C-alpha cells in the first residue's frame, strides 16, 4: 500500500504527471512496434535510426536557431529515415550484409551528429544549451503539447496496426507468401519501417539517442517470454513499455536530476530479466524445473522396470526382496522408494523387504511397452 501511495503522491505533481503520461505513451507505441521489429529481426535497425537522428536534430537547430520540439522531431525523422533508406539500399545493391551496413551508417551519422553538437556548443549564443540532453534524454523537458502530439501519433499508429493486423502478421511471418498472394509487400515494409522510425524519433527527447533502441527491443523481448500468440505479445509489450515509462519517471523524479532515459531503460531491462527467469514455459527457471522433472521421471521409470525384472525372476509376485539389493541399481535413491510407496506401486514392510503391487506391475509393463522411456 505504501508503495502505491508513494506512486500517487509522486504523480500528483503536475510536471511529473505530464512526464509520466508522456513516457507511458512512448512505452506503448515503442512496445507495439518493437514487437514487429524483433519478430522481423530488425531490432538493430532501431539503434541505427536513433543514432542517425542526432545530426538531423543538430542541423534543424542550426537552420532555425530555435529549440522547437516539432522542428527537432522533423529533423530527427528526416535523418533517421535517410539512414534507413541508405541501409536498405546498401544491402539490396551491394554484397554488404545488413549488420555491416547498419554499423557503418550508425557510426557515420552519429559521428556527424557529435561533431555538429560540439560545434553548436562553441557558438557564441546562449540559446544552444540543452541540446546535449538528446544524448541521454531529459523527460523533464516534455511539455503538455509534446505529450498531446505523442498521444495523437500513438493513437494513429495503433489504428494502423489494428486495421492492417492481418497484413502485418502475414508479412512479418512469411513475406514471400504475402507477395505471392498479391499483397504489396514493398508498401507494407515501408509503412512498418516508417512507423518504427516514428516511434524511435518520438522517444528521443525523453530517452535519448543512445538508449532509445532498448525501448523498442526490451518490452518486446520480455513479452515474447510470456506468450505464443502475436496479439497477446503486442498487448503485453505495450503494457511493459508503459510500465517501464512510469517506473522510470518515478525513479528519475524521486532521485532528483537522474536522466529519465537510463531509469526507464533500467526499468524495462528489469522486466526483461524477470521474464527471462520466471516466465512459465520459456523462462529459465521453468525450463530447469521441467528438465529436472523429466530426468527424475526417467530415472524412476528405469528403477521400476529393473524392479520388475527382479520380481519376474521369481514365481510369486509377492515374493519379498531386500531393499538393499536395489542400491546396486543405477540412479537409485531412497527417495524413490518413498515415491513409489506413495504412488502405491510398491509395498515395503518393517523389515525392509519389498514387493511390487499389482498396480506397480501394470505400470512396469506399460513402461516396457513404451520402450523403457517416457
Amino acid at each position: 500500500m505504501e508503495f502505491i501511495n508513494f506512486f500517487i503522491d509522486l504523480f500528483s505533481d503536475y510536471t511529473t504527471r505530464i512526464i509520466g503520461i508522456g513516457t507511458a505513451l512512448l512505452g506503448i507505441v515503442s512496445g507495439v512496434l518493437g514487437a514487429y521489429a524483433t519478430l522481423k529481426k530488425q531490432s538493430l535497425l532501431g539503434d541505427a535510426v536513433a543514432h542517425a537522428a542526432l545530426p538531423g536534430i543538430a542541423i534543424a537547430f542550426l537552420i532555425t536557431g530555435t529549440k522547437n520540439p516539432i522542428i527537432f522531431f522533423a529533423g530527427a525523422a528526416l535523418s533517421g529515415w535517410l539512414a534507413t533508406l541508405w541501409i536498405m539500399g546498401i544491402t539490396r545493391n551491394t554484397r554488404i550484409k545488413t549488420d555491416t551496413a547498419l554499423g557503418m551508417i550508425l557510426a557515420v551519422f552519429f559521428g556527424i551528429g557529435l561533431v555538429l553538437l560540439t560545434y553548436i556548443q562553441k557558438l557564441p549564443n546562449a540559446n544552444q544549451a540543452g541540446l546535449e540532453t538528446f544524448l541521454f534524454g531529459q523527460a523533464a523537458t516534455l511539455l503538455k503539447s509534446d505529450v498531446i502530439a505523442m498521444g495523437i501519433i500513438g493513437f494513429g499508429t495503433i489504428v494502423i496496426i489494428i486495421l492492417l493486423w492481418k497484413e502485418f502478421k502475414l508479412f512479418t511471418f512469411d513475406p514471400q507468401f504475402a507477395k505471392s498472394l498479391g499483397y504489396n509487400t514493398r508498401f507494407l515494409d515501408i509503412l512498418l519501417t516508417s512507423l518504427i522510425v516514428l516511434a524511435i524519433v518520438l522517444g528521443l527527447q525523453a530517452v535519448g539517442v543512445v538508449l532509445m533502441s532498448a525501448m523498442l527491443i526490451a518490452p518486446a523481448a520480455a513479452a515474447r517470454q510470456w506468450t505464443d500468440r502475436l496479439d497477446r505479445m503486442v498487448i503485453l509489450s505495450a503494457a511493459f513499455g508503459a510500465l517501464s515509462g512510469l517506473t522510470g519517471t518515478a525513479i528519475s523524479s524521486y532521485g532528483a536530476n537522474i536522466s529519465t532515459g537510463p531509469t526507464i531503460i533500467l526499468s524495462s531491462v528489469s522486466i526483461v530479466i524477470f521474464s527471462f527467469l520466471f516466465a512459465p514455459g520459456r523462462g529459465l527457471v521453468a525450463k530447469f524445473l521441467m528438465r529436472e522433472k523429466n530426468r527424475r521421471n526417467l530415472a524412476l521409470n528405469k528403477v521400476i522396470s529393473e524392479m520388475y525384472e527382479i520380481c519376474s525372476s521369481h514365481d510369486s509376485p509377492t515374493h519379498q526382496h531386500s531393499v538393499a539389493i536395489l542400491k546396486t541399481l543405477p540412479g537409485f535413491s531412497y527417495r524413490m522408494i518413498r515415491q513409489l510407496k506413495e504412488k502405491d506401486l510398491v509395498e515395503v514392510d518393517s523389515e525392509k523387504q519389498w514387493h511390487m503391487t499389482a498396480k506397480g506391475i501394470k505400470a512396469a509393463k506399460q513402461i516396457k511397452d513404451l520402450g523403457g522411456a517416457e
Partner: protein
Amino acid sequence: MNSKPALEINDLTVAYKFKPVLWDIDLDVPEGVMMAIVGPNGAGKSTLIKSILEIVKPIAGDIKILGKSYRNARSEVGYVPQKGSVDWDFPTTVKDVVLMGTYGNLGWIRRPGRLQKVEAEKALKKVGLSDFSHRQISQLSGGQQQRVFLARALVQDANIYFMDEPFQGVDATTEKAIINILKELRQRGKTVIVVHHDLQTVTDYFDWVTLLNVKKIASGPCTEVFNEKNLELTYGAKFTLAVDQ
C-alpha cells in the same frame, strides 16, 4: 489430358546481382499434369517458381499461367514455399498459419470469418493435423511443419499449385501422406508443379518432369525425357555412378 497449357514461359532470364540464375527458359506445361522440377543445387529451381509467382523480378521473359498474367491468375494459384523460408518460432498457431491461405481472396483489411475457419479446419483434417489446430507452430516436427504449409495451400483452393521441396525433412509416412494428397489434387484436374530432390521417386510420383540447370535441359513426360542422357546433361558426367544402383 488436354493440351491447353497450364503454364507457358518464354525466354525467361533471371539474375541475382549480375550472376545469371536462369538463362533463356522456355517451358510449356499442359493442364492437369503432376510435374517435378529437378536439378542440382543452385540450378535455379526455387527461382523458377519464385519468378512465376512474381516474388523475384526477372530481367526478361514472359510468363502466362492458365493463359493469363500472374496478376489475373493469382486467385487460381496455390503456393507452398520452402519450409526453411520462415521462422517457426513465430508466435502463432497452426490454425492461424493455415488461415493465411485465405488472405489472398479476402484482400486488404477484411479478416477471416467463420467460412474461412471452416475451410482451414477441413484442410487441417485432410493433412491429419486436426488435433494440432491450436498448437504453437514451434512445437511441430519437420514433417508437421511441411503439412501445415500444404494445408495452407489447400485452403487457397487453387487450380495450379507450386510447391518448393514439400518432401524436404519428412519421414516416409509423411511423404506418402503428402503424395496421396497431391495425387488427389491431380485427379480433381489440378496442375501440380513440385521442386523435387529425390531422383529415385520421380517416375513413381510424377508424370511430367523438367530438368533444369540454369538452362532448361529437357521437359516433357517422364517416359520421354527422364533418361540417363538428360540426367547427365543436368548433373554432369560423374552423376551416373551415383544413381545406377
